[in-house]
């Protein structure tokens, strides 16, 4: 057993953990990262396609290249990084936290820290979560696992595949599987519109003549040992039109049906979870319901762009530093999401600085407006071009746009979407 004392421990060394740690170190606090994989970078390591970093670095990078930019900053610092190490438990103490981690190399590690940053990313939803009926053969993979097998292990998960879900991960895997020689027979999407970016529909499906079945579900999986085919059924008004079911022969089914923040250790530490996002409830400083524990990146809510993850995580690192310097004990006010929004994060705001919010729409529109109201009075509006549930919306409320005199202890800010 080894005991390590630091100001902050960051759990997870993906893009979120690296950015938060870099920011905290930059502000002269001691910090360590624990990462269960043998290298830093998280999910970026398996995203070998490009399209990362357009906002942050004004360049088009691949996932590993983007990760490398941050890994270099970490390596150049004097920060301690524990790879191949898994955190299993966070314990609250009167003063600070104790975090337990295990690794083959270091044995049991006990971290005594003042603050913790949760940056564990998310996991993929799977067949059980969507309840696909049928047999239980080999050959049903989540898209992320298939991506890992192809891109990092150099293995083909199958040769004739159907992809469920038209989010960006599903689309990118459709192209990837085609490139490595598989026959991608179709992409099946339950919604009436594609979930991914238009550019990905064009580049990943149209360019390869892969049919996209909107408003369809996989209604049955066939095959005893290995997948032999699937049934696809159209939906009309949300109801399966069974007479129009058709069959596709395939040996592989890739599921790209959403991500869920991975909050096991957060739950065990007694942190309150937001039922909409499956991430922790956080205040305006991204601090969870347990004092001194912060969260950023995909563990907080699922992001579609790594650039936003980095942005949010740098901010989180700054908030953690403020906390260590006892600068965050300012009054916070309530923030809620109103019409047509699935959620807004964070759920509190402060009047003495700019506030950044991320949110997801419940509706699809080509033109829409974000409306901000304080205690029922409209504060401002922002025009949006295209909105859909799979694309995160970000919004900054400038300190100067808030009328501080109008705030009382029970003030509530509400953000809504009008289509």
């Amino acid at each position, binding site marked *: 057993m080894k005991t390590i004392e630091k100001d902050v421990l960051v759990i997870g060394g993906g893009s979120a953990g690296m950015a938060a740690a870099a920011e905290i170190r930059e502000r002269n606090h001691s910090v360590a990262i624990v990462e269960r994989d043998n290298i830093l970078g998280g999910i970026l390591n398996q995203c070998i396609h490009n399209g990362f970093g357009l906002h942050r670095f004004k360049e088009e990078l691949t996932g590993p290249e983007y990760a490398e930019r941050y890994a270099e900053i970490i390596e150049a610092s004097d920060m301690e990084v524990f790879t191949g190490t898994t955190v299993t438990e966070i314990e609250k103490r009167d003063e600070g936290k104790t975090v337990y981690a295990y690794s083959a190399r270091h044995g*049991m590690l006990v971290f005594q820290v003042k603050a913790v940053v949760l940056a564990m990313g998310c996991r*993929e939803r799977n*067949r059980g979560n969507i309840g696909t009926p049928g047999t239980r053969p080999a050959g049903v993979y989540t898209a992320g*696992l298939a991506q*890992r097998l*192809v891109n990092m292990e150099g293995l083909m998960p199958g040769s004739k595949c159907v992809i469920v879900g038209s989010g960006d991960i599903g689309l990118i895997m459709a192209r990837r599987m085609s490139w*490595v020689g598989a026959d991608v027979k179709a992409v099946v999407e339950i919604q009436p519109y594609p979930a991914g970016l238009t550019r990905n529909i064009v580049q990943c499906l149209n360019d390869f003549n892969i049919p996209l079945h909107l408003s369809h579900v996989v209604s049955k999986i066939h095959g005893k040992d290995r997948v032999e085919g699937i049934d696809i059924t159209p939906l009309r008004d949300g109801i399966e039109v069974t007479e129009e079911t058709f069959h596709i022969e395939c040996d592989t089914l890739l599921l790209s049906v959403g991500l869920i923040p991975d909050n096991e250790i957060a739950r065990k530490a007694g942190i309150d979870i937001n039922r909409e996002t499956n991430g922790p409830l956080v205040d305006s400083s991204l601090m969870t319901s347990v004092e001194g524990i912060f969260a950023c990146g995909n563990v907080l809510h699922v992001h579609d762009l790594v650039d936003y993850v980095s942005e949010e995580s740098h901010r989180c690192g700054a908030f953690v530093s403020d906390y260590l310097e006892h600068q965050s004990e300012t009054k916070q006010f309530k923030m809620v999401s109103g019409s047509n929004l699935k959620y807004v994060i964070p759920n509190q705001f402060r009047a003495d600085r700019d506030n950044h919010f991320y949110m997801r729409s419940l509706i699809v529109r080509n033109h829409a407006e974000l409306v901000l109201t304080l205690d029922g009075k409209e504060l401002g509006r922002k025009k949006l071009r295209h909105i859909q549930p799979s694309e995160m919306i970000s919004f900054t409320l400038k300190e100067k746009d808030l009328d501080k005199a109008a705030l009382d202890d029970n003030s509530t800010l509400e953000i809504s979407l009008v289509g």
Partner: protein
Amino acid sequence: MADIYDVAIIGAGVIGSAIARKLSSYNLKTALLEKECDVSFGVSKANSGIIHGGFHHDSATLKSRLEVKGNLMFDQLKDELHFPFNRCGILVAAFSGDEMRTVEKLYQNGLGNKAIGIELCNHERMISLEPKLNRDVVGGLYAPGGGIIEPYRFVFSLVESAKKNGVEVLTKFEVAESEEKNDCYILKSADGRSLKAKWVVNAAGLYSDEISRIFGAESFTITPRKGEEFLLDRNATAYTSKVIFPAPSHVSKGMLVIPTAEGTTMVGPTAQMVDDKQDASTSKANFQAIFSSARRLVPAVSERDIITSFTGLRPTMEGDDFYIEASKIKPRFIQVAGIQSPGLTAAPAIADYVKDILKVEGLALSEKPDFDPYIEDVPRFRNSSKEELDALIAENPAYGEVICRCENISEAEIVAAVRQGHDTLDGVKFYTRAMMGRCQGGFCTHKIMKIICRETGKSMDELTKRGGGSWLVHKKVGDYALEDRA
């Protein structure tokens, strides 16, 4: 084909395995034959895992007598074989006067069977025994002697113990033909292997009718009765402290809420006669039936918590009782068929019963003085204290490598599984619980595949989910693309 076995047991489910272990305590040469690539891949892997409380059937049935006897054997078995077992107790909840009368019949069964501690309960007693019960419960039955086990782990342990005491286990040995010669049976497998045995025990589960036919013994039919079940997340608030049954109907015990031995919640099973012995499919209609019926018992049951579902087939036969007898047609051939529920509970008692039949029929049994009932306990990461873990890792660093993050399974446990011969993904899954948690292997499947390859020397494209044609990946990416282009 030099050696002659004294006994060949066909089928390495819980029944064949329990019999094999029992016989391993005598001076006998025993073979356990299994058509699948691992043991416990039949009915015994997909069931509710309940050690029944001795009240469902009256003592006139063989299955009831063996259930009660089997139940009492589990404490000692756990001590020797270290599988997860928890005598958590069973409640049967009644929601009307009619249902209460059915429950009273169960109570009478229980008394007749001498089920330990069985009692009738009023509304208040039910709620205090299980606060998560639906408040509309009018009363019910409490059987404190009932419990839960991890069924596959139980079978793996039985087999490990049997092997340790000299039983030979032959997997991928599908008995396809038999011949009788000089008071001996010659058993031939589908892939052309053969072996000789003086005695044969038919414990082939769903296929015991086929085996009986192959040997020219009695003719009977096994009809599968399908049961679908759903597993809920470890965090599900529906997790109860006891197994909760509804009042049974005349066709089945009904759909239950089960707190599994490993801390997850299970709901189901359905009961539906099917024709196909390989029908492992799940359907949408059953899904709705299971959840509405489970919620009636425990309102906290929620679809939101589903992590996976599975199907099992109960091997039922006419008369609805166990059929355990020496064949009246073929000598030295013992039928152990129709072992539907409570087969798991009864398994150790069935093993004793079969041993007695063999003895009566003339098999000489002498106890082995060096029989060792204990197997090694593989420590589990998730059940170890911090201090124990620290010591385990110091001794074996592989305990520090957490492979399955949802269930906290270390590399050391996965290696132990593979070294015990469980070298498919399902084998590793059932032995360790890796890939059984909420992410269903999304994060760790590739790591486990690498460990299996390293330990067995196999290549990735030789690995399977559960043997046969259940391949996982084929070829390397480059090879595939090149070949395809050529």
